[in-house]
């Protein structure tokens, strides 16, 4: 059978029954190749002052654990309120609820843990045991017998002779193996860029689409001070939810001018320009604007765009400029409001394979 057939297996039951539990433990351990090379009581004389002190200390720790658990239950069940209140509006003691139950739970757990560890370290017999590893490969006879079993089973199957069965089963199994993948991917797959609001190339902006704030109000050229910015959206159904549409409307300071890209010189309106707010790197909103230098920073990976150079990336991992939205203004009831003259001329947001 296995290694380590020690004296334990050769004892009769009657002989084994004569052993004390400790002797039986030692004999049993040796039967498994575990030798207790050193074993001694921590307190050879029972009931000494030192032993009682150790026991008392551990008992005190357990007692504190008990009290902490009881206190937890009391606090949890209503001794301290937990409902959140505005500052200055009613009982503010809820602030103590979470810290209290956390520390009481921690204290109770810690006391049990520390007590148990101390019990093991202070009171259990000092012991050093050595166990044979018997690791690595089995002995050679075992290996040969095992190999024989595998080979014999394999030849019973006759896989080597019955190549037709092998091939057809491999075909069937291989095809069936692909089925779960097909089922999962086939169920989940969606053709990109198909359906309303699903295009990576286009946003809901288009000719005449009004620019609106997140709450749906229309954007007027009178809304911003020079140097001011606003986040605006296409004023269509679902336009404020579309992840690639958020647009940064910037009113330049006097004396600032944007060096426009080729063919986009007329995209601005007066001292207003509008760029996609979605960083061309990883899609975070590039929303930290420094008026003086005209720089936009994306806080996720610190790409920096120079608005005055037509939102060209000047630092960090972004490669492409922020796309620019062509703007115009229409008059409604004598009030000027911004509308888009068309969609962005290129895809907004992070790059992807199909993008030229």
């Amino acid at each position, binding site marked *: 059978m296995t290694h380590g057939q020690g004296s334990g297996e050769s004892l009769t039951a009657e002989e084994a029954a004569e052993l004390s539990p400790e002797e039986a433990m030692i004999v*049993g351990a040796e039967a498994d190749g575990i030798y207790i090379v050193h074993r001694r009581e921590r307190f050879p004389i029972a009931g000494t002052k030192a032993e009682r002190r150790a026991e008392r200390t551990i008992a005190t720790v357990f007692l504190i654990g008990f009290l902490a658990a009881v206190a937890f239950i009391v606090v949890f069940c209503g001794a301290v309120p937990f409902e959140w209140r505005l500052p200055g509006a009613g009982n503010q003691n809820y602030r103590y609820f979470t810290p209290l139950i956390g520390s009481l739970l*921690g204290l109770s757990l810690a006391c049990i843990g520390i007590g148990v560890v101390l019990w093991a370290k202070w009171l259990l017999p000092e012991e050093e045991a050595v166990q044979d590893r018997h690791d690595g490969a089995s002995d050679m006879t075992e290996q040969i017998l095992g190999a024989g079993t595998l080979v014999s089973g394999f030849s019973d199957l006759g896989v080597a002779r019955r190549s037709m069965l092998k091939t057809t089963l491999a075909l069937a199994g291989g095809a069936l193996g692909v089925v779960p993948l097909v089922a999962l991917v086939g169920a989940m797959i969606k053709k990109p860029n198909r359906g309303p609001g699903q295009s990576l190339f286009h946003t809901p902006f288009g000719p005449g689409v009004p620019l609106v704030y997140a709450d749906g109000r229309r954007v007027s050229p009178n809304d911003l001070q020079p140097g001011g910015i606003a986040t605006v959206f296409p004023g269509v159904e679902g336009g404020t939810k579309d*992840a690639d549409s958020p647009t940064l409307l910037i009113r330049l300071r006097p004396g600032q001018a944007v060096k426009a890209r080729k063919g986009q010189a007329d995209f601005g309106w007066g001292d207003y320009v509008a760029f996609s*707010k979605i960083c061309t790197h990883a899609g975070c909103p590039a929303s930290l604007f420094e008026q003086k230098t005209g720089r936009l920073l994306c806080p996720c990976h610190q790409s920096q765009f120079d608005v005055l150079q037509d939102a060209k990336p000047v630092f960090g991992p972004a*490669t492409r400029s922020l796309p620019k939205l062509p703007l115009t203004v229409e008059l409604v009831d004598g009030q000027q409001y911004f509308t888009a003259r068309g969609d962005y001329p290129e895809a907004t947001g992070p790059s*992807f394979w199909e993008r030229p």
Partner: protein
Amino acid sequence: MTTIDSADSRRPADGPTGPTVRGPKRFDKPRTPQGKAARWAEDRLGIAGGLRKQLNKVFPDHWSFMMGEIALYSFIILILSGTFLTFFFDASMAEVRYDGSYVPLDGVEMSRAYASTLNISFDVRGGLVMRQIHHWAALLFMAAMLIHMFRVFFTGAFRKPRELNWLIGLGLITLGLVEGFAGYSLPDDLLSGTGLRIAAAIMQSIPVIGSWAEFLVFGGKFPGTEIIGRLYIVHVLLVPGILAGLIGAHMALLIKQKHTEFPGPGKTEHTVSGERMYPTYGMKAGGFFFIVFAVCAALGGLAQINPVWLFGPYNPAQVSSGSQPDWYIGFLDGSTRLFPSWEIRLFDHTIPPLFWPTLVLPGILFTLAGAYPFLEAKFTRDRSAHNLLQRPRDVPVRTGLGVMAITFYSVLLLSGGNDLIAKAFDLSLNAMTWAGRISLLVLPPLAYAVTYKICLGLQRHDREVLEHGIETGIIKLLPNGEFIEIHQPLGPVDDHGHGQLGYAGVPVPKKMNQLGARGGGIRGFFYPVREKADIQAELDALAAQEALQERHRERELTD
């Protein structure tokens, strides 16, 4: 074909129903409740022998072996606290108007996922503490696994026969990353939504299939309405299931192969020494579970983590500065920040710069880590099995490579927070980025060289002490006026006064105190820990008492 005797001919004479005398009555028909329970179990399971072997299993004790334990225990804590959270969390992206007790967000439109997270934080009794325990335990789980991996690496515990467990461990860390990311994305707050947006951009960046991958995972264009529900089942069933299975395999291999241990007196490749599982080691390990849980509970109560109510619901048009992921994702954030803006455009197609630092780099890192045991065996031509650990200084190349890898990782991790560092120390953000880029290339080789040298220096010092003895600090004036320092040899010396002990892969004492020159220190916090002398005195007293009684008895007999 050989025939085999029918089973009946082998049945014992008295048959299974006949009366059996199995041994002494005390064991056969126990009277005590414990005895009866043991008999009941034994008659059905027959486990006395197997159980005995497992109860007696020997565990070596070393503080560095506790890292893996911490990881295991935090996984258990994660399952316990996570189960609590599932009772209240609603993984839906349907829009609702918030009307819970956190007044500042009253009436704000948000997903049910975010609303239910607020509900857990403010309206479920003890919900906040559970959420925070869960989050802290997750951070601890990842940290403990990583440090456990360092321990295994630097001591060579991954060598044959334990390469499989190294790979399983690496799989656990990888899945831990996925599990953690999925978990902190669930609340659908501004921070986690920003993380998901970046994840979507990363998927988009894959050449050829990028947009297909994004549309598949998100069920359409980001953000869609599916992702939270999908992440939820990944987070609470799929990945934890695989994690539990892998942890089981990790443990099973550990039990089969037994622990490694550091070399030392009486330690051999063919034995393992320490304390038996039952009762001592089991008690210590069980107690330690409670201590780890206690730390998580205290952190969960006292240290705020991920206050999602301050971030607000996710909105693709908003972001907050200082948007940092959980620490274990930080190295990927750092690599993304440092990677230059190199976009490849070929034949009207694009490979975005995002692809390299977020998918290719971790792919290379994890592949290298997985291949390391096999590469080392190949280069050192060491094909033998090892159960005794090595001191890091004794394997300078491996230690150097390890420190090099940690340096590389640390630069990435720090760069993941370079905006916070720039803000705290009033530095230029661009300078931080450039410092990160340069450090990433320069520091790792430098770390390798320095580590290698330090290892050699430590090795030489060990040999020097073995040869010349410990520096005692005692200066002696020779008759010719020369001053020399007296060295205490560690063992027998030859004619030249050189020690004859060889290096055995164990720490060499380098101070007189380590030889007990101080006369043995007093240990203990409030009371001195009992020293061996005390025990001996007690034993002596006991022996004397017994001898006295013996003499009395003898006298009685002779009288």
